Protein backbone atom coordinates (compact mmCIF):
# COMPACT_ATOMS: atom_id res chain seq x y z
CA UNK A 1 0.00 0.00 0.00
CA UNK A 2 1.32 3.42 -0.93
CA UNK A 3 0.34 6.85 0.32
CA UNK A 4 -1.77 7.46 -2.78
CA UNK A 5 -3.57 4.14 -2.34
CA UNK A 6 -4.24 5.03 1.28
CA UNK A 7 -5.68 8.39 0.17
CA UNK A 8 -7.81 6.67 -2.49
CA UNK A 9 -9.22 4.21 0.07
CA UNK A 10 -10.02 6.99 2.52
CA UNK A 11 -11.69 9.06 -0.19
CA UNK A 12 -13.83 6.11 -1.24
CA UNK A 13 -14.87 5.52 2.37
CA UNK A 14 -15.64 9.22 2.91
CA UNK A 15 -17.51 10.43 -0.19
CA UNK A 16 -18.55 13.63 1.58
CA UNK A 17 -14.92 14.81 1.74
CA UNK A 18 -13.03 16.43 -1.10
CA UNK A 19 -10.07 14.31 -2.12
CA UNK A 20 -7.95 17.43 -1.67
CA UNK A 21 -8.97 17.42 1.99
CA UNK A 22 -8.23 13.72 2.37
CA UNK A 23 -4.75 14.37 0.94
CA UNK A 24 -4.31 17.21 3.39
CA UNK A 25 -5.38 15.02 6.32
CA UNK A 26 -2.89 12.28 5.44
CA UNK A 27 -0.11 14.82 4.82
CA UNK A 28 -0.92 16.56 8.12
CA UNK A 29 -0.59 13.33 10.09
CA UNK A 30 2.83 12.41 8.69
CA UNK A 31 4.10 16.00 8.73
CA UNK A 32 3.11 16.36 12.36
CA UNK A 33 4.88 13.13 13.32
CA UNK A 34 7.96 14.33 11.40
CA UNK A 35 7.84 17.73 13.13
CA UNK A 36 7.56 16.15 16.59
CA UNK A 37 10.53 13.85 15.89
CA UNK A 38 12.64 16.73 14.64
CA UNK A 39 11.88 18.55 17.91
CA UNK A 40 13.24 15.44 19.61
CA UNK A 41 9.81 14.46 20.93
CA UNK A 42 8.22 11.04 20.85
CA UNK A 43 4.91 10.20 19.22
CA UNK A 44 2.87 7.53 20.93
CA UNK A 45 -0.21 6.08 19.28
CA UNK A 46 -1.56 3.39 21.59
CA UNK A 47 -2.30 0.13 19.87
CA UNK A 48 -0.39 1.24 16.77
CA UNK A 49 3.08 2.08 18.00
CA UNK A 50 5.52 4.73 19.07
CA UNK A 51 7.94 6.82 17.04
CA UNK A 52 11.08 7.95 18.81
CA UNK A 53 14.47 9.37 17.94
CA UNK A 54 17.55 7.43 18.90
CA UNK A 55 20.98 8.97 19.18
CA UNK A 56 23.90 7.29 17.48
CA UNK A 57 27.34 8.24 18.77
CA UNK A 58 30.09 9.42 16.50
CA UNK A 59 32.24 6.53 15.34
CA UNK A 60 35.00 5.69 12.94
CA UNK A 61 33.56 4.04 9.87
CA UNK A 62 35.35 2.52 6.96
CA UNK A 63 34.98 2.95 3.28
CA UNK A 64 34.12 -0.66 2.39
CA UNK A 65 35.83 -0.37 -0.98
CA UNK A 66 39.14 1.12 0.06
CA UNK A 67 39.23 0.15 3.74
CA UNK A 68 40.03 3.76 4.53
CA UNK A 69 38.91 5.05 7.95
CA UNK A 70 36.24 7.75 7.76
CA UNK A 71 34.91 9.67 10.76
CA UNK A 72 31.12 9.38 11.10
CA UNK A 73 29.49 12.18 13.08
CA UNK A 74 26.96 11.52 15.79
CA UNK A 75 23.45 11.49 14.41
CA UNK A 76 19.81 10.99 15.27
CA UNK A 77 17.85 8.10 13.79
CA UNK A 78 14.05 7.83 13.66
CA UNK A 79 12.78 4.61 15.23
CA UNK A 80 9.38 2.93 15.31
CA UNK A 81 8.28 0.31 17.80
CA UNK A 82 5.00 -1.41 17.02
CA UNK A 83 2.38 -1.32 19.76
CA UNK A 84 1.16 -4.49 21.42
CA UNK A 85 -2.06 -4.69 19.45
CA UNK A 86 -0.44 -4.15 16.05
CA UNK A 87 2.43 -6.50 16.89
CA UNK A 88 -0.05 -9.23 17.73
CA UNK A 89 -2.14 -8.59 14.64
CA UNK A 90 0.91 -8.83 12.39
CA UNK A 91 1.95 -12.07 14.06
CA UNK A 92 -1.53 -13.47 14.53
CA UNK A 93 -2.34 -17.04 13.67
CA UNK A 94 0.83 -18.27 15.27
CA UNK A 95 0.08 -16.52 18.55
CA UNK A 96 -3.50 -17.78 18.41
CA UNK A 97 -2.23 -21.36 18.20
CA UNK A 98 -0.12 -20.75 21.27
CA UNK A 99 3.06 -21.31 19.32
CA UNK A 100 4.89 -18.30 20.65
CA UNK A 101 7.25 -19.66 23.22
CA UNK A 102 9.81 -17.72 25.25
CA UNK A 103 7.26 -15.20 26.38
Amino acid at each position, binding site marked *: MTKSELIAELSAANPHLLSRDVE*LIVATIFN*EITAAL*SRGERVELRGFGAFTVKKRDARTGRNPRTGEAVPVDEKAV*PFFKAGKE*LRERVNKG*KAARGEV*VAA
Partner: protein
Amino acid sequence: MNTVTRAHLTETIYTQVGLSRNESADLLETVLERMSSALESGESVKISGFGTFSVRQKGRRIGRNPKTGVEVPILPRRVLVFRPSQVLKAHVNHMTPPAGDEE
Protein backbone atom coordinates in the same frame (compact mmCIF):
# COMPACT_ATOMS: atom_id res chain seq x y z
CA MET B 1 10.31 14.67 27.13
CA ASN B 2 7.13 15.74 25.40
CA THR B 3 4.97 13.05 23.89
CA VAL B 4 2.68 13.68 20.97
CA THR B 5 -0.50 11.60 21.10
CA ARG B 6 -3.68 11.00 19.12
CA ALA B 7 -5.19 14.07 20.78
CA HIS B 8 -2.44 16.32 19.37
CA LEU B 9 -2.72 14.87 15.89
CA THR B 10 -6.52 15.23 16.02
CA GLU B 11 -6.13 18.85 17.04
CA THR B 12 -3.75 19.51 14.16
CA ILE B 13 -6.17 17.98 11.63
CA TYR B 14 -8.97 20.03 13.19
CA THR B 15 -7.08 23.31 12.81
CA GLN B 16 -5.43 22.58 9.44
CA VAL B 17 -8.31 20.95 7.60
CA GLY B 18 -11.30 22.48 9.34
CA LEU B 19 -13.22 19.27 10.05
CA SER B 20 -14.94 18.84 13.40
CA ARG B 21 -12.83 17.42 16.22
CA ASN B 22 -14.88 14.24 16.15
CA GLU B 23 -14.43 13.72 12.47
CA SER B 24 -10.74 14.57 12.71
CA ALA B 25 -10.33 11.90 15.39
CA ASP B 26 -12.26 9.37 13.29
CA LEU B 27 -10.14 10.01 10.23
CA LEU B 28 -6.91 9.64 12.14
CA GLU B 29 -8.21 6.34 13.48
CA THR B 30 -9.19 5.23 9.98
CA VAL B 31 -5.72 6.02 8.65
CA LEU B 32 -4.08 3.96 11.41
CA GLU B 33 -6.59 1.15 10.93
CA ARG B 34 -6.08 0.96 7.14
CA MET B 35 -2.33 0.84 7.64
CA SER B 36 -2.69 -1.82 10.34
CA SER B 37 -4.91 -4.04 8.24
CA ALA B 38 -2.56 -3.83 5.24
CA LEU B 39 0.32 -4.85 7.52
CA GLU B 40 -1.78 -7.58 9.08
CA SER B 41 -2.26 -9.09 5.63
CA GLY B 42 1.51 -8.99 5.16
CA GLU B 43 1.46 -6.04 2.79
CA SER B 44 4.03 -3.24 3.11
CA VAL B 45 2.89 0.33 3.65
CA LYS B 46 4.97 2.87 1.78
CA ILE B 47 4.52 6.50 2.69
CA SER B 48 6.69 8.60 0.40
CA GLY B 49 8.65 11.26 2.26
CA PHE B 50 8.12 9.42 5.53
CA GLY B 51 9.10 5.77 5.38
CA THR B 52 8.11 2.18 4.74
CA PHE B 53 6.50 -0.21 7.18
CA SER B 54 7.00 -3.84 6.26
CA VAL B 55 6.48 -7.25 7.72
CA ARG B 56 9.46 -9.51 8.07
CA GLN B 57 9.33 -13.25 8.59
CA LYS B 58 11.74 -14.42 11.28
CA GLY B 59 12.94 -17.98 11.40
CA ARG B 60 13.12 -20.29 14.38
CA ARG B 61 16.09 -19.70 16.65
CA ILE B 62 17.31 -20.74 20.04
CA GLY B 63 16.90 -18.14 22.71
CA ARG B 64 18.00 -18.20 26.29
CA ASN B 65 16.26 -17.12 29.43
CA PRO B 66 18.71 -14.45 30.55
CA LYS B 67 17.94 -15.09 34.19
CA THR B 68 18.28 -18.87 34.30
CA GLY B 69 20.36 -19.51 31.19
CA VAL B 70 17.89 -22.18 30.10
CA GLU B 71 17.60 -22.56 26.33
CA VAL B 72 14.18 -21.95 24.86
CA PRO B 73 13.15 -22.27 21.26
CA ILE B 74 11.82 -19.04 19.71
CA LEU B 75 9.38 -20.08 17.03
CA PRO B 76 9.06 -18.49 13.61
CA ARG B 77 7.17 -15.23 13.82
CA ARG B 78 6.33 -12.14 11.81
CA VAL B 79 7.59 -8.78 12.97
CA LEU B 80 6.99 -5.26 11.85
CA VAL B 81 9.92 -3.15 10.72
CA PHE B 82 9.98 0.54 9.85
CA ARG B 83 12.51 1.98 7.44
CA PRO B 84 12.59 5.77 7.65
CA SER B 85 12.90 7.68 4.38
CA GLN B 86 15.94 9.83 3.62
CA VAL B 87 13.66 12.84 4.04
CA LEU B 88 12.62 11.85 7.57
CA LYS B 89 16.22 11.02 8.52
CA ALA B 90 17.32 14.43 7.28
CA HIS B 91 14.57 16.16 9.26
CA VAL B 92 15.53 14.58 12.59
CA ASN B 93 19.10 15.71 11.96
CA HIS B 94 17.99 19.20 10.92
CA MET B 95 19.54 18.79 7.53
CA THR B 96 18.17 19.50 4.09
CA PRO B 97 16.62 16.37 2.61
CA PRO B 98 18.47 15.10 -0.45
CA ALA B 99 16.84 16.44 -3.58
CA GLY B 100 14.85 14.04 -5.69
CA ASP B 101 14.65 11.43 -2.98
CA GLU B 102 11.04 11.11 -1.98
CA GLU B 103 11.43 7.53 -0.82
